[in-house]
């Protein structure tokens, strides 16, 4: 070490060699950091397009249904759509539904309802957050024509493989909203009443097919499937279609803490 190399913390000026070392260290570390950053950005993803119109409220009029999901049948951008409704934060919109039913005497069909909320869309689906809670219901009026729901039931049991997601995040509030990093968030949402969905990828790995998850009696089983969220699962159940919305009715696992990764490509089974 040369005489002028010795640098001590309280000195105002460091020697030339010391300064040079500091600069070298800085340059090498920033270079490695940027390389790592590039690599990470290159490897991560891909990310689907998704939108959450945060801060922008949209109004819709139409008939409201509560099976297989609380939704409003309306038209959006010139297309007839059934838009499922969720609550603010990680909660369902069930309190709004309850209030609504109080006003209509328990019936939903035969009423034209006007709602306001924040739109969420991704994967070709449109959802809406009733951001203002009960205030989201603007008007309730009787309607002359009554829609009939088209119900198709397969009757037989089939096996579907996909990932259980929380639709609020999945259809646009968060991105990405699948797999392990998002798992605990999805669990929170589903635990808060947001209707769980089995999302199924097509051959190209894109999510194309979506099923609401209910038990055989058609009830929500959110609290029974929490530990199966965010991982690949196979569900055995009956599939039915209500007005174009698909439902898979399963027998919920009896003890969800007994968690069995199956040999079947590491897929965990739920509701055998």
């Amino acid at each position, binding site marked *: *070490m040369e005489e002028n*190399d*010795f*640098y*001590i*913390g*309280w*000195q*105002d000026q460091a020697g030339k*060699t*010391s*300064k040079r*070392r*500091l600069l070298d*260290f*800085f340059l090498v*570390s*920033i270079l*490695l*950091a*940027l390389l*790592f*950053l*590039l*690599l*990470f*950005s290159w*490897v*991560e*993803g891909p*990310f*689907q*397009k*998704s939108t*959450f119109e945060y801060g922008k409220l949209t109004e819709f009029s139409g008939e409201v249904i509560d099976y297989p999901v609380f939704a409003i049948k309306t038209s959006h951008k010139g297309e007839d759509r059934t838009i499922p409704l969720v609550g*603010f*934060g*990680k*909660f369902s919109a069930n309190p709004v539904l309850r209030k609504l039913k109080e006003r209509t005497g328990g019936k939903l069909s035969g009423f034209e309802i006007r709602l306001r909320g924040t739109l969420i869309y991704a994967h070709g689906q449109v959802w809406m957050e009733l951001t203002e809670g009960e205030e989201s219901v603007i008007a309730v009026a009787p309607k002359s024509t009554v829609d009939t729901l088209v119900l198709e039931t397969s009757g037989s049991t089939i096996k579907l493989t996909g990932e259980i997601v929380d639709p609020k995040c999945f259809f646009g*509030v*968060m*991105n990405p909203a699948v*797999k*392990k*990093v*998002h*798992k*605990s*968030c999805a*669990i*929170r949402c589903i*635990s*808060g*009443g947001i209707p769980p969905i089995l999302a199924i990828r097509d051959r190209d790995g894109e999510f194309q097919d979506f099923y609401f998850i209910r038990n055989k009696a058609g009830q929500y089983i959110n609290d029974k499937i*929490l*530990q199966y969220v965010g*991982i690949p699962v196979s569900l055995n159940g009956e599939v039915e279609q209500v007005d174009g919305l698909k439902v898979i009715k399963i027998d919920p696992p009896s003890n969800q803490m007994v*968690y069995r*990764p199956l040999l079947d490509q*590491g897929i965990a089974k739920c509701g055998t």
Partner: protein
Amino acid sequence: MSVSYRSILWNKQKIRYDKGLVLFILIFLVAFFGIHLVFHSNVTIETIIIRAFGLLSLVLLHVILTIGPLTRINPRFLIVLYNRRHLGVTMFLMALIHGAFSMMNFHGLGDINPIRSIFLSNLQYQSVAHFPFQVLGFFALLILGLMAVTSHDFWLKNLGYKTWKALHMMVYIAYGLVILHVVMGVIQNETSIVLFAVILTAFFGIAMLHLLVAVRETTTDQQSKLNAEWVLVGAPEEIKESRAKIVAVSGERVAIFLYQGMLSAVNNVCRHQGGPLGEGKIIDGCITCPWHGYQYLPGNGQSPPPFTEKVETYDLKLENGQVWVNAQPHPEGTAVEPLKIS
């Protein structure tokens, strides 16, 4: 030290250092946000923030862990070390942003308290593949926080060197937790094996560096394991003016300094943060620690007033042109007549 504390001791060199640190962070964040806005524009801003600050703190942690062993291998890197605590505190703040955002995003606005939710949402504690990795991050952040808030010299003095050092050695526990947090979290999310390989390489790099230094230092220590009363130092010519030679004496390291034709021996461990005094230099008649510049008089191991630090001193003798050091230390700050050699 028994002079008044200051909040942060800045000087021109330290300011330059901190500017470099800020620049590092800015470059990293700007690059990260830029790349994501251009190539991953579908990602939500929360995701970008969480990932940017997570990666940034991961990178800074690696930088921090490289500095220690690097200075042991090549003392020219000491200049990187002396302001390491600013790096540490900054790294903690970056990790805190990552943690706070993740908690708000993933656990906030839910049906249970977000902190409880970290522990109680994913319950697969018995599974390796599905382990709730956020819990690991939580504990790592707790440790890093404890270290960050005790990084001021006040804590070193008032907790005592041993406690303080033990507290700050916990960085290795935190590092382990961080690596597991990253491997079990982010990397599992991605299909590519590349990230996994990079993290593993980084981890082994850090481990190897530390191992290398440890091996080097134990060999020095083993040179004189004998419990003899006097331990051989070597010929006085081996020591350069104003510098020292370090020898191991019954489990302790002793630094023997040469100055103005005289030799003095003091304990090698600086009472500030345990810096190696023997790698320091005599400046204005005082042994000056290479780490943060604490000073000790070679004749009695005492810091010049108003400072109050003291180190042990040792007797020396000259026999047949060879210097010997007595294995029995004098109490800290005891004056010992320097050994004249010319």
